[in-house]
């Protein structure tokens, strides 16, 4: 099972935090700090797996990858394949890239909800749901459309709030 997905930047600031088993928010922050500590101590050209038994219990590992200024981190246990997790991360990043055309940290910073929506299409309750980024894209587009249409029904002003 996948225990969690974290995106954080190279300063250790979390940009997306999703744990698939409930963790109190203080614990989350603590875990993020510990993970950041581990990640930033690692050189560039080394393997991407880290054993995190001490943080999450026996047999739990994480795989991370750096994209520009961001660390993508997947935390998972025995029932996942390490290399498949790397692939899945690739799927996630690809989807983000398609969604925000040339994704950068700011896109993720300002699209908190959408990033969650994307992730929810890929992983549900710690299980891999979809591994094709185009399928994910399709669903996410539909959801966006639905959100927009839903908003137009109810007279409200969020439309120009963002500007």
């Amino acid at each position, binding site marked *: 099972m996948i225990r969690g997905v974290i995106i954080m930047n190279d300063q250790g600031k979390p940009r997306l*935090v999703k744990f698939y088993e409930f963790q109190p928010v203080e614990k989350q922050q603590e875990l993020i700090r510990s993970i950041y500590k581990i990640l930033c101590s690692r050189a560039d050209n080394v393997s991407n797996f880290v054993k995190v038994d001490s943080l999450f219990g026996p047999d739990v590992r994480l795989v991370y990858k750096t994209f520009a200024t961001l660390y993508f981190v997947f935390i998972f246990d025995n029932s996942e394949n390490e290399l498949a997790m790397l692939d899945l991360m690739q799927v996630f990043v690809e989807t983000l890239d398609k969604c925000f055309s040339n994704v950068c940290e700011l896109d993720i910073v300002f699209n908190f909800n959408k990033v969650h929506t994307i992730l929810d299409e890929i992983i*549900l309750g710690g*299980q891999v749901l979809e591994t094709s980024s185009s399928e994910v894209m399709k669903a996410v587009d539909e959801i966006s459309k639905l959100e927009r249409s839903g908003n137009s029904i*109810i007279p409200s002003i969020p439309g120009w709030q963002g500007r």
Partner: protein
Amino acid sequence: MAGPSLMDSLFQRSLDDIIKGLRLTPPGTESTFIGKSLNEIRREIKSTDPATKATALQKLTYLHSLHGADMSWAAFHSVELSSSAAHSHKRIAFLSASLSFNPNTTEVILLLTHQLRKDLSSSNIHDVSLALSTLSSICNPDLARDLTPEVFTLLSSCKVFVRKKAIATVLRIFEQYPDAVRVCFKRIVENLENVDMGVLSTVVGLFCELTEKEPRSYLPLAPEFYKILVDCRNNWVLIKVLKIFAKLVPLEPRLGKRVVEPISEHLGRTGAKSLAFECVRTIVTSLSEYDNAVKLAVGKILELLLDDDPNLKYLGLQALAIVAQKNIWAVLENKELVVKALSDVDVNIKLEALRLVMSMVSEDNVMEICRILISQALKSDPEFCNEILGFILLTCARNFYEVIFYFDWYVTFLGEMARIPHCQKGEEIENQLVDIGLRVKDARPQLVHVARDLVIDPALFGNPFMHRVLAAAAWISGEYIELSRNPFEVMEALLQPRTSLLSPFVRAVYIQSAFKVLTFCLSSYLKLTGDNASYPSPLTDSVPKTNNEGSLDTVACQSLSETELDNQNMVVTDGQTPFASLGTSHLTEESIVALVNLVETNLGPLAGSSEVEVQERASNVLGLIKLIKPKLHDCLDQSEGDKMKVEPNASEMVQVIFDAFSEDLGPVSLNAQERVPIPDGLVLKENLGDLEEVCGDMKLPLSTSFSLVKPHMVDATSIPEWQSKEESEPSNESTSLLAEHRKRHGLYYLSSENKGMISNDYPAAHDPKDKAVDETEDLVKLTGESLIIKRKPNHVKPRPVVVKLDDGEGVNVALKAAEVKADLISGAVQEVLFGNEATTSSRRKSSKKSSKQREVDELNVPVPESKNSTMETDKSGVGFGGSGRRKHHSHGKERKHRNSGKDKEHDKKDKQKSNHGDGKHKSQQRADGDLAVQSPVIPDFLL
């Protein structure tokens, strides 16, 4: 009402504003900004306008998730907003719920039930999928129970998009509400035949999670999994199926025969590294007896090891580590690669390589490997250096130093290791040094030598990690002082000024060791002088008296004059170290007096130490000195004049010292324990007598097989161990308080504590007995151990591997907790798969269920046939004796009965074959129970 809410809406800051604001705030003031925003949010969230509320909740969720703000107070608002008609609001509400609700404590979760049910039945697939993903995040037993029907419906939804999410959600529902299995399981199994890869992948993923917890229940589904394994070409699906088989194969050996081929085929065919690696892992973990497959896998591992990608190299080493457990040749074949990986830049790779190198250690190569590793450690950064040292220590101490045959080498090696600049393993080294001292009598001379070198080196005090090693060295020097070439030198080392750098704890050890050295020197001196004279006879009564008077005297008046004397002596000792050149054989009155003075000078100030341990021990020594000193002076004075007069004094002193010896050193001295008398009616002796006989039998073959070292080891083990065990046994009860005290005062008492614990640990030494049926086998095991170990009874506590043992226990405890749940699920699974009989099978699994419960279960079985089989399993189970096996068998039987008509045909065939004439159901079953118990488990698959 509309007014304020409109104003709120108009001037409400959006999430983007908050984010921008946060980015603009100077570092350090974020919390103020967040606090202010939270105040705003608290106001806005109460708005009746859903849009305002949604934005407020969105902002709050953001601050909660990424900045750790508390939002438990807003749970109800999430619930409220979730009923909004707008999908975007609903999404915000459910996201906030799934990120912040605690399934166990958030009370309003139940208020979501209705909304979730509504959304699960919605015609909009995105509403449904949102509800599913929320449900799987916040699922608790109540939600799971209430929403099972809706999820069940979705399991056969014609929309793949929804169906696979429903399947994924089911895992959480099962975990929270095992009864849901009865409802949903069949439909889930049906999905195993789905042609859609998305659905198949999710359902296989689900089974992968389920088998992880309790694989046995899913054995009957092996044919389905096998079909997927053979037919499917989707890597994601195959990886999960492989993981399932990795769990199932060990339970059903014949399964291995079937799957090994397709798995090898996948391994040869696939270009995907992830699948290839999974094949390799499955083969090396669960199919390790299939040589061809293993060879293929090892070939693949070699490819991974040679790859430039550090990830592949790392995984390759990991896989190799698994192979090493059963096929060590694979590691040896790739030895060079492994050793090379030791100097990789990647810590992961280095660690894996180190682990592998340690797995290669045997008694033949341990010295060589240690040499290589130490040179590697010297080159490495401190952290990895200590990893290496830790691994060496762990491996060498493993199973009571089973790989070590040259203890002289090993203790010297430990001494060298302690001196490595980065070494932080002082405590471990300390434990092993003391431990070896206690266990390995033959190593003691070398140990004393190593300890002397450590104690005597003033440079070592500077390194705080060294202190624990020094404590061990000091203890050894004191305890085995009779083996020392020069006790005076040791005494000086123990009292050197730099000892003030030590922690009080270690210092206390030093003082106590000095005490031992002192008493040793005095008594040997007295023995020397006493040789000429007759030994003490008359003064037994007066001894205690002397004690009291002496101490009173000394306290009162002598202190001043003595310190003066000491000062003089100090000058002498510091200048020339007059006794450094003297061996034990050169004991003279002068040297003894000088020694006593040296001790007194150095320990005198410590009697006023603020550390209780130090103070107490120093006082002990000083007390002895005060008793003895006047008499020594008498000796000196008188010996100059009249030799004859010395004798009564000397003999009296011998008494006093021996009293001091036995009183103070008793608990620590190795011999002291052996003096404890054996209480009546202790059966242990007989038992051990047997043991010794067996030991005697064992001597011959073993001593021939291990040349050099073995013979004297045999001598060392069998007898002293036997003695110490037997004699220390009685001390158990009487010393329990003492043991408590020792525990508290730790280090110094280490040895004696072990001694004290011998009796406690005794049953543990016989541990295998509990499980093993065969007593002789038991004894063989024991003796096998004892041949290697010098003093087995002492092993349990100081043995470094104790860490391991603790781990094991910890895991067990953790597992138990998890098992209960898994048990419920699998119990339900079996019920579904086999109907009522599952109740019987669930009983089999859980020793947790009381026997009463079992009876109830049995009674509950309604169908006559199944009842029959219940009895059957019991009987056959008894026949097998071993409880572990019995589970296995009974399980297989149940399967047999549960399965459909096909099985029965199969049964009949078997019946005919087994030709036991009576052809009765029962006997037939028992007969084939022995040989092919599990054949019915996956019948159509095997036939």
